[in-house]
């Protein structure tokens, strides 16, 4: 099955809704870390299954190991969220979160799960709430590194050929910390999102 494409006006509306959601997520992350968070402009791409590996190309941090946390969400709109952390120098993050300067492996993982929970929750709620939808979240869990995340996306994120993927990067100013959130919207959810955006635009036109 091929994911339906959103018409241009609906896509622009979704982009704006996503921008607002990601802004809220950036603010939530800034609050947790007590530092200024720089956000990239969120991208919304229709991604072909054969090119799924490109989602894990991390540009300037591509040589570093990454740690990936997943958190699925369910409801009228459902999907999968992945949060990619730059695995280099976790003590930078530990310092900000308030852990010991050299956190144990368990502490590092707990820290990443906690951060993913906050950021993914803000991102996804920021997207679904303007569309008058409600979702529930499964607990976040660690996926592993880049190969594990790629395999997970191919084998476990539904039987998709194309998926709408929201992609945003957060980084801290003057700190060695970067992360990326990928939100996969399921094909069935896209139909519901399409209808919700129509209602959203109708309400806007009537205001």
């Amino acid at each position, binding site marked *: 099955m091929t994911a339906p494409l959103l018409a241009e006006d609906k896509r622009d509306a979704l982009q704006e809704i996503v921008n607002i959601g990601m802004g809220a997520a950036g603010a939530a992350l*800034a609050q947790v870390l007590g530092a200024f968070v720089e*956000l990239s402009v969120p991208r919304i791409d229709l991604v072909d299954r054969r090119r799924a590996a490109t989602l894990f190309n991390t540009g300037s941090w591509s040589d570093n190991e990454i740690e990936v946390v997943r958190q699925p969400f369910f409801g009228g709109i459902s999907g999968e969220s992945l949060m990619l952390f730059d695995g280099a120098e976790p003590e930078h993050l530990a310092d900000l979160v308030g852990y010991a300067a050299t956190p144990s492996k368990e502490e590092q993982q707990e820290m990443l799960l906690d951060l993913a929970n906050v950021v993914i929750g803000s991102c996804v709620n920021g997207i679904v709430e303007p569309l008058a939808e409600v979702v529930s979240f499964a607990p976040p869990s660690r996926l592993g590194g880049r190969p594990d995340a790629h395999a997970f996306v191919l084998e476990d994120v539904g039987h998709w050929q194309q998926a709408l993927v929201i992609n945003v990067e957060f980084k801290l100013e003057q700190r060695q910390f970067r992360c990326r959130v990928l939100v996969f919207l399921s094909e069935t959810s896209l139909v519901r999102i399409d209808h919700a955006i129509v209602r959203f*635009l109708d309400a806007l036109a009537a205001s």
Partner: protein
Amino acid sequence: MRVLIVDDSRTARMMLKRALPPALGGDVLEAAGGSEAIRCVQSDHIDLMFLDLTMPDVDGYQVLKTLQEGGRTPPTIVVSADVQPLAQQRVRQLGAMAFVKKSLSQSDLAFLLRGAGLL
């Protein structure tokens, strides 16, 4: 009064335009990015600018910085979803008069504009 709305999203521009009080809705220009906004301010007289922060070409911070350096910042209200306290502090240092969270209602906007003496 000539109003400039700067946002890369057409939906966001439309939402803001609809939230404008009738007194300000008569002469509204739109810019879909930071570069266009800077050109617009440099070539037109703008009485009030609404500015998004996160834009792909030139972001809102850069727009403010460029206009501040040129001494041409019109009264500016930053409209953003990025509500970090430091973001608010920075845009004020760069010459913005107010910072409001997206999406703002008609009544909130009217209250803000009245408070700023623009209504």
